[in-house]
């Protein structure tokens, strides 16, 4: 870390007092923040910045996506697996508005991004000029911070602030909109890293009294249950989490954003929370005596009906964002702090303990779920292919060590339920926003950030068609992602709801799909179609064989299958259904 700091300082020193344009100042500022990768798409209002970038191609790799939504999801994937800040460029007007879905996604899933948009020259602001839009106002409710630069002298300071804000406290997307005249304006460059903004206090520290009270609840608990979310991954608190649950023998369950913070095969990992989560952790939420929530925000997909959620339990909430505390679930003890710091300070106050009877209850739940749901999903003997058996095979072949990037819908739930995640930061998904079309571009960004890891994009046939143009980017830059379409020719999750709650009135959910293999091959990406159980393993092996090549599998799965267990929308987690 220190060498990186030094490198950044020396770069700032090298560039000091150089007379440059605003555009070059943008690129030099990014270099000072150690940016090596940008996803973007040029256009009129950002051309000076792209021109400046042309001279820095040896130090910054730019990926030309095929749609700005692809750029921002790629930047999100990059940020999520690396822990660093994802960077994307877009031009004004439609370029900027095409980023909006990704900005909103990054905001709700706490993903650090710096999005730089070109803007019309300042004298044209507000005149309905060509490709002018008020992207600052549009993005206001969905950015952590935003700033419009009209004077190039502000550029270094604004970019320094952007990086500090994006990746401190609860991370999030920052938008910097730069007018074309500012991009062309000459300035004397000087860069100083931002370390403090008085109106922004990103890292509140735990209070000793709260830690003591929390420890007391935990130490006296007979049926503790810990829930962990994305905050654990962001804070890199996985070791602290493990130590605490092992010391006090606390079963731990994850939100889909927290997945991969604790090895799926860890004996205290009791599984997934929420609507399509595991039977045990949902049921036991309403039976535990102490509920310890770490770095999660009690999303409605996790809690179901709040009036019937963990009412019997003492609630401990460890959370860095004060606005999340008491927002959905009233806490008995709130520790407003970074998860790593809070767990580190809590650990010495926790007594060693055993809860074997309580853990046995979870085991019984798992057995019941296995019998009624899992067994048939993973080891079907007849009928069409099940998504679960495919994921199970993928998990086996990659030894649970790949980065799995999922889209939104049934395949997402199945991938998370059945892939065995052994390494941290290997689950990338659109959790809070549920953005279809997220996975393909996000997998590109993930692979660029982690070139030595196997990156698998698992996507439904619906979501794939939302951003499939990025096959062009994958092909152009030879980004070797492994793409699996779990194709049921349906918008599967919507169809499932129609079946269960709308009397099987399948209103516009069936899809007549194109030939995905031909499309992929048209982009120069090898592909094959899989239709039978016997073909799965061979096709997967061929896909994983050449690590340097992207590959696509169109796997035809059973059309009308439901994901279970399920907590119906608005129902209590206690009423989780197994069928």
């Amino acid at each position: 870390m220190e060498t990186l700091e030094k490198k950044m300082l020396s770069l700032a020193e090298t560039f000091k007092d150089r007379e440059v344009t605003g555009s070059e100042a943008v690129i030099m500022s990014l270099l000072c923040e150690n940016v090596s990768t940008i996803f973007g798409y040029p256009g009129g209002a950002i051309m000076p910045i792209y021109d400046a970038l042309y001279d820095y191609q040896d130090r910054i790799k730019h990926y030309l996506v095929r749609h700005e939504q692809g750029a921002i999801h790629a930047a999100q994937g990059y940020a999520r697996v690396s822990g660093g800040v994802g960077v994307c460029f877009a031009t004004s007007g439609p370029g900027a508005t095409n980023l909006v879905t990704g900005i909103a996604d990054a905001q709700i899933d706490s993903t650090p991004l710096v999005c730089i948009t070109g803007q019309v020259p300042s004298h044209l602001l507000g005149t309905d000029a060509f490709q002018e839009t008020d992207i600052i106002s549009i993005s206001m409710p969905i950015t952590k911070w935003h700033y419009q630069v009209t004077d190039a002298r502000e550029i270094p300071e604004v970019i320094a602030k952007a990086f500090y804000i994006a990746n401190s406290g609860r991370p999030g997307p920052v938008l910097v909109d730069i007018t074309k005249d500012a991009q062309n304006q000459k300035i004397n460059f000087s860069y100083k890293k931002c370390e403090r903004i008085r109106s922004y206090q990103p890292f509140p520290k735990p209070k000793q009294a709260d830690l003591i009270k929390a420890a007391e609840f935990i130490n006296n608990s007979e049926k503790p249950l810990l829930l962990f979310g994305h905050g654990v991954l962001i804070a890199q608190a996985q070791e602290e989490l493990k130590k605490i649950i092992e010391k006090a023998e606390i079963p731990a369950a994850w939100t889909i954003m927290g997945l991969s913070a604790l090895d799926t095969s860890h004996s205290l990992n009791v599984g997934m929370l929420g609507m399509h989560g595991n039977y045990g952790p949902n049921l036991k939420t309403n039976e535990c005596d102490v509920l310890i929530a770490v770095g999660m925000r009690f999303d409605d997909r996790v809690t179901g009906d709040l009036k019937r959620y963990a009412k019997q339990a003492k609630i401990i909430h460890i959370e860095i964002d004060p606005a999340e505390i008491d927002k959905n679930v009233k806490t008995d003890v709130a520790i407003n702090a970074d998860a790593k710091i809070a767990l580190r300070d809590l650990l010495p106050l926790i007594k060693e303990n055993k809860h074997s009877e309580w853990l046995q209850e979870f085991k019984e739940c798992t057995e019941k779920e296995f019998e009624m749901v899992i067994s048939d999903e993973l080891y079907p003997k007849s009928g069409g292919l099940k998504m679960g058996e495919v994921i199970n095979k993928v998990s086996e072949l990659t030894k649970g060590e790949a980065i799995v990037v999922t889209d939104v819908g049934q395949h997402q739930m199945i991938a998370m339920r059945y892939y065995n995640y052994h390494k941290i930061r290997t689950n990338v998904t659109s959790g809070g926003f549920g953005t279809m079309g997220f996975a393909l571009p996000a997998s590109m960004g993930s692979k660029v950030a982690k070139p030595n890891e196997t990156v698998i994009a698992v996507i439904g046939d619906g979501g794939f068609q939302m951003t499939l143009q990025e096959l062009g980017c994958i092909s152009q830059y030879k980004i070797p992602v492994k793409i699996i379409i779990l194709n049921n020719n349906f918008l599967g999750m919507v169809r499932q709801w129609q079946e269960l709650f709308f009397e099987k009135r399948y209103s516009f959910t069936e899809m007549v799909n194109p030939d995905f293999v031909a499309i992929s091959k048209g982009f120069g990406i090898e592909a094959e179609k899989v239709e039978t159980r016997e073909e799965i393993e061979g096709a997967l092996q061929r896909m994983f064989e050449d690590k340097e090549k992207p590959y696509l599998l169109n796997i035809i799965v059973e059309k009308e299958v439901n994901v279970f267990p399920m907590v119906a929308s608005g129902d209590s987690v206690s009423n989780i259904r197994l069928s």
Partner: protein
Amino acid sequence: MLSKSIYTNNLNDEEERDFTISILSENSVGMLHAVTIIFTRRKVNIESINASDSEVAGVYRYTIVIRAKRSVAEKVVKQIEKLVDVLAAFLYEQDQMHYQEIALYKMAKKNLSSNPEILTVIANHGAKILPTELDYEYFILEKTGHKNEIMNLFNDLEVYGVSEFVKSARISVSKSKRETRTLIEQLENSNFNLIDA
């Protein structure tokens, strides 16, 4: 330990009532919009809003009155405080601050001559007549007070004809002993800027 907001605890959450939110913010373009959309999102109507300087140079103060349940008001204040350029946001019940509003009433001079008792009404309400040019056909009254006092005067005058009426947003000062300068110093020196200070 540093805490940007102060709240009073355990107040009843059943009834909707007036809350005053006082926000200290950096002077950045678009701040007012960034603050108000937080209310829009929760569909909370703003009763009144005032933007002004504060006692510290460069720091702005927004005073916003909303009608809401306490739990909603608290959540909104936390969301406002989350804005990067907001230094602090405070939630006040009616009895936790001193507040005033100001109103102007425009009336025709001829009403005064035909209804001299208007002068008594004005005096009873503690309003005052603003100095205006002699040849104007109207006169202007100014009244400072709480909303109900201002509206009572309006009701009393309406029978004589009020040709224009305007009331300002509420402005308030808290009963707290907190000093804004001290608070800002605390923010400037806190160790909350880095993860492990």
